[in-house]
């Protein structure tokens, strides 16, 4: 077990190193480096200035040398400086991580609260009208374009009914404290949470339904029924507990998005999270921010993959690690 986890950890570190170089390289292929941007914003710039700036930023060096330099400063704890916001990246990224964490946790828990009962219900009544309906609901969840869902929610709730704010993280310039501040944040959270949750509900319902169907066909279910257990006990204690196994994997994998955020949903709702930061920094060519948030999300995904495998082993003793 320990050797398995250790080996996977080493593999993960290698993959992160390779991927970060890959990211670094393709970022250099993007149009407009910082000096080009400066040239555009300052018509009086001389060619000597350009050359000096290029040396200053190290842009005259080949990509791999720049990568090594960047990686060594990163290891020393210096995340670099944001070109757009003119603040250190570490300062910038902290609050966004918290915002994203709040959003992803609330949408994940909402999704699980809705999806698991729905999935179990439709599995127990397989083939019924209700099953068809739940299935359609779930299929729509995995098929709907996230940006369009967000826009439709905005149209319905903020343009037509004026119930909720169309975007943002909290009311700008508010001086609220305590409960009022929390309520204000909550108001801005509702729409993004709803749209993110619906996207996850689709997947969760389908997994719950199929693994529940599988579990309820086992012989021990018949035994449990035969010895006169109540229907609730059969479903939840004998059926559902065994159906949970595959669900663990799916939920752990979706946990990987907890810090990387939902890029499109956050951008459409102008929610100040990591997803929006990644998008903005890529578009604005804010190199340091993009790389750091990239590495955070890749690392999270890989660690959660590992965690999913390990958890799976704990939940199902039949699986052995080699």
């Amino acid at each position: 077990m320990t050797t398995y986890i250790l080996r996977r950890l080493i593999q993960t570190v290698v993959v992160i190193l390779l991927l970060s170089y890959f990211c670094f390289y393709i970022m250099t292929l993007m149009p407009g480096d910082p000096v080009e941007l400066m040239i555009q914003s300052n018509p009086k710039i001389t060619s000597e200035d350009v050359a000096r700036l290029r040396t200053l930023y190290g842009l005259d060096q080949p990509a791999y040398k720049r990568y090594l330099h960047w990686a060594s400063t990163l290891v020393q704890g210096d995340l670099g400086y944001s070109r757009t916001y003119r603040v250190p990246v570490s300062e910038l990224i902290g609050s966004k991580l918290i915002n994203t964490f709040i959003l992803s946790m609330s949408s994940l828990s909402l999704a699980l609260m809705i999806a698991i009962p729905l999935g179990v219900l439709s599995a127990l009544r397989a083939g019924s009208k209700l099953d068809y309906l739940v299935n359609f609901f779930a299929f729509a969840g995995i098929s709907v374009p996230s940006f369009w869902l967000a826009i439709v929610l905005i149209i319905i709730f903020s343009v037509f009914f004026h119930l909720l704010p169309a975007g943002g993280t909290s009311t700008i310039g508010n001086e609220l404290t305590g409960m009022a501040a929390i309520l204000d944040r909550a108001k801005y959270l509702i729409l993004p949470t709803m749209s993110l949750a619906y996207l996850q509900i689709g997947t969760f319902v389908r997994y719950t339904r199929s693994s529940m169907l599988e579990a309820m066909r086992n012989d021990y279910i018949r035994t449990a029924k035969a010895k006169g257990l109540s229907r609730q006990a059969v479903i939840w204690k004998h059926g559902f507990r065994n159906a949970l196994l595959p669900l663990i994997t799916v939920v752990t994998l979706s946990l990987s998005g907890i810090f990387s955020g939902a890029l499109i949903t956050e951008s459409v709702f102008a929610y100040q999270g990591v997803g929006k930061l990644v998008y903005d920094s890529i578009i604005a060519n804010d190199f340091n921010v993009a790389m750091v948030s990239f590495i955070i999300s890749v690392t999270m995904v890989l660690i959660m993959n590992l965690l999913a495998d390990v958890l799976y082993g704990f939940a199902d003793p039949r699986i052995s690690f080699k």
Partner: protein
Amino acid sequence: MTADKMNETRQLTAKEKHDLEHVLPMWKIVWQQFTEHRMAVIGLCVIIFFVLIAAFAPVIKAVTGLDPEAQNPLSRYQPPLSRTMLPTDQRNDKVLEFENMNPNVAAELRKSLIEKSLVQSASEEDALYDLVAQKNTDEIREAMKLIPTEAADKFLPVVNTFETMHVFGTDELGRDVLMRLIYGTRVSMSVGLMVAFFSAFVGLLIGAVAGYYGGVMDAVLMRVTDALLSLPTLPFLIVMAAIDLNKVPLFKSLVGSENESIVKMVTILLLFSWMTIALLVRGSILSLREREFILAAKTLGAKDSTIIFRHMFPNVIAPMLVSVTLGVGNAILFESALSFLGLGIQPPTPSWGNMLYNAQELISEAPFLAFLPGLLILATVISFNYLGDGLQDAIDPKAIRR
């Protein structure tokens, strides 16, 4: 029991016997199982409908006479089912064209227009232009009824082109939304299908090599696959889409500028979509490798390529089909997301995604515009997902029967 009834029962058993003894080919069994999944059949119909629309888009354009690119700054954001007039200068151009084509008819028309004082004109030369400028199409048609029919008949088709009916209204540049949706179907569908097709090809190849040869080859290919699978897809797609292609040495010489954004889109999406198929193929090939018929083929001296292509691939295709079908839906979703962010298919080429590009600014002015393309994406992707689900049930004998 009468003799008649005896005969009837005997005939019935004979028919049943025939049914029982008659062997159904594989595809018929699959088809029968597939048709039991009602939603999958509906999905298939929807997909066929969209494919037909995509294929016949130029025909629809020719029949309706609507151009998806034609802009009309005077009629932006028209609601559905509205009629719009061409701007005056474009109407004048059409009249000029008509006069040059049929000078005699035009002269006759002008004369009778002045005679019957249907138009107030300073000079006879301007009669037609003034008519077009002063009256709307219905009034012109009325006027045409009062003058010699032959000349009027020739002018009426020109009048008819002045006005266009927009079933789904017009967009921010006054273009017909229906036509753009139809042409968008063409782009979005072909991107989706191409990505799925190529990723099936790449996945098949990589999965087969990894599964069949094993060893170092397998380890390397699978690590690459795992690494790509664990990437956060969307940020990567955005970076790739934002890449300046002029900085990539080979690409520029291979692709012309015409379809650049479509080719770029397909390439980028392909990079991130072959992995699931490769894993699936590898898995099936690993188990096929131990089967007797492969051993038999090897014993007979078949080459590796023969074994892989002739003996293994036919057994892999069926399960792969499901994955490919689901892949089309995913590719369409990613394409639309990237185009929505302005990084995918570049205007003026319409795609469902880039029609939503500035949908966010439009939600108060024209919510309808923001609604339609997304609905089409949803309908298509959900159809592909149901189709995949139906195929899975039909192909896999162990699947739960509904």
